[in-house]
């Protein structure tokens, strides 16, 4: 399962491991090196002390006194050992502390040189050794070579390092654990608003809440706001549907009642005609309700881009078939690349009804132009759709009545009123308007202006 918290925790753990690993390695190396350097310095001191204590004996050999200033040379198994070998490698002196031990001879350094080495006793006790080869000049001006060697057991040093390491790991582990713990608490706090959104949406679903509250951190206010917009537009839409449905159902009741009444009055001379009238009425009601706008400005989030040129071409190709006999001349001007922000069906309904009416009423000419709203920069924002014909036109008072209620103007051309009423409804749902005036062609000119979609909110 994909979870933000676990992802964060895992990556933070990796980061901690990496940083602490490097830190531990660096500290460990530094501490070990510093410790070893200190050991070497001490060993050097002991060597110098041995050199100072060495005196030639009666046999013209070097000798060291039984008691040295450093008491550890005198204590058995003290961990600090001294040794003197002659040219041929024979041990001519060994400190009392090394009693019963065999200090490995190791590599003999060049004359006059120091040599540090790591060696081992037979029992594998690690040693740090320092050897120095010297040329000793006696009083009779003869000289002999000797090798001084001091060795110190690293047992205690190693134990010290191990202790240090243990502490280092312990502390870092404790710090890492604390940090992770703190971090997961922090995360829990950070994720809380998300869980809150989830809970609130659940409450909206169950009807306990109308919209998301506004108490969210800055990063989430956008999400919450858009969510609220979506919820509002969905709610408005379902309200609209319910209203439409309600209207539809109720408005069908009257013609139904009339039909039932007619059935009880079949001797009526105009029975067929009256019955048909009621059917026409129901048909008109249903048509009008079915062609109501699919989208509205409130549905900003679900609007599509409609290719105006393509849809107009399709419409006109269709109308040319339907009005084949009348053969109207179409004069089409569409802004290149023009897009309409909305529902394709709604656009076709706007243009289709206007063009259909124009074809119905025209003598010969139908003109349609689609341009972006004046002043709008983007082509997709806003639209002015204008359809004109050279027919009889619509008288001003009739136009007013049409715009008011969408009533039928002329019973002999069915659907004119419905078409315009539908256009008006759609235009209004997109926040636009419908206007009717006299066209230069001689007939009516009907203009639908849809304002730009204000998406910045």
């Amino acid at each position, binding site marked *: 399962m994909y979870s933000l918290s676990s992802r964060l925790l895992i990556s933070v753990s990796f980061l901690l491991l990496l940083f602490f690993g490097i830190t531990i390695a660096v500290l460990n190396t530094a501490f070990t090196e510093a410790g070893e350097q200190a050991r070497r310095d001490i060993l050097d001191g002991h060597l110098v002390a041995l050199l100072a204590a060495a005196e030639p004996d009666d046999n013209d050999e070097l000798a060291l006194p039984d008691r040295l200033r450093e008491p550890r040379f005198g204590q058995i198994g003290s961990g600090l050992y001294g040794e003197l070998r002659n040219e041929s490698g024979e041990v001519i002196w060994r400190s009392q502390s090394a009693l019963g031990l065999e200090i490995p001879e190791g590599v003999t350094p060049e004359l006059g040189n120091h040599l540090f080495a790591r060696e081992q006793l037979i029992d594998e006790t690690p040693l740090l050794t320092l050897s120095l080869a010297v040329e000793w000049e006696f009083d009779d001006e003869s000289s002999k070579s000797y090798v001084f060697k001091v060795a110190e057991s690293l047992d205690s040093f190693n134990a010290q390092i191990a202790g240090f390491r243990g502490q280092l790991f312990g502390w870092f582990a404790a710090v890492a654990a604390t940090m992770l713990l703190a971090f997961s608490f922090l995360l829990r706090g950070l994720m809380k608003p998300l869980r809150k959104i989830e809970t609130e949406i659940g409450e909206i679903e169950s009807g306990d809440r109308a919209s998301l509250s506004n108490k969210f951190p800055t990063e989430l206010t956008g999400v919450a706001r858009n969510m609220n917009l979506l919820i509002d537009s969905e709610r408005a839409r379902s309200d609209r549907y319910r209203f439409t449905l309600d209207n539809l159902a109720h408005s069908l009741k009257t013609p139904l009642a009339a039909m039932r009444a007619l059935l009880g009055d079949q001797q009526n001379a105009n029975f067929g005609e009256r019955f*048909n009238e009621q059917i026409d009425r129901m048909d008109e009601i249903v048509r009008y309700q*079915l062609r109501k706008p699919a989208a509205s400005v409130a549905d900003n989030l679900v609007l599509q881009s409609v290719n105006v040129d393509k849809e107009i071409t399709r419409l006109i*190709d269709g109308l040319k078939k339907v009005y*084949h006999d009348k053969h109207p001349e179409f004069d089409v001007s569409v802004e290149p690349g023009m897009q309409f922000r909305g529902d*394709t069906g709604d656009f*076709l309904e706007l*243009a289709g009804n206007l063009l259909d009416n124009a074809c119905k009423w025209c003598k010969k000419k139908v003109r349609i132009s689609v341009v972006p709203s004046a002043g709008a920069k983007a082509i997709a924002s806003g639209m002015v759709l204008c359809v004109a014909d050279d027919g009889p036109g619509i008288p001003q008072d009739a136009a007013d009545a049409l715009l008011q209620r969408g009533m039928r103007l002329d019973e002999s051309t069915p659907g004119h009123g419905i078409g315009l009423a539908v256009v008006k409804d759609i235009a209004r749902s997109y926040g636009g308007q419908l206007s009717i005036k006299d066209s230069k062609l001689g007939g009516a000119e009907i203009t639908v202006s849809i304002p730009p979609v204000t998406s910045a909110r």
Partner: protein
Amino acid sequence: MRLLVIEDDLTLRESLVRKLSDAGFAVEQAADGKEGLYFAEEYPIDLAIIDLGLPEVSGLEIIRKVRAEGKTYPILILTARDRWEDKVDGLSAGADDYVVKPFHFEEISARVNALLRRSGGWASSQLDAGPVSLDMSRQELKVSGEAIELTSFEYKIIEYLMVRAGKVISKSELTDRLYDQDFERDSNVIEVFIGRLRKKMDPDNTIKPIETLRGRGYRFALERNQSG
């Protein structure tokens, strides 16, 4: 003329078929898209009336397939869907006109006649050729302004020939298109009717409206006075 009606609603289909038959058409009918598609592809048809919301194969699909096969007979859509989106879809698929349900039969018959006439290249329901004039909406034939009394079979033949003025129509095409399937297929019947028509329209044998092409069929021979 042979029409095809594809409509799944029984009442609607039966009433349409009956009224179209009464109006003098030979009518095939199909109750679903599959059967309809079969008829539309395999039968000699002059016009199809297709409901868009059909079971099995949708009306739109039938129209597309029929057009893809290069069939050019007119198609009239019946639809309950009234939005322009649906109408435009149907028309761009290849239909020629639409009628929205519910409709009056007169609406259908007017559209059917207009489409048939149009497919023959005539611009109005009044077909004028020389002294002969045929009013399809009134089913009335006049020669030099005088109305000629015709039986319904005679009318059907002259209408079929005149709508296709200038084209040669074989006897078998005439029997196929003008009569329902179970009609006795005797080509002599056609000859008899043609003979009667000639006598009624042209008793003096001066205008010669119908030409016989031996072994091929008949042709309405007069020039059209106007064409669409």
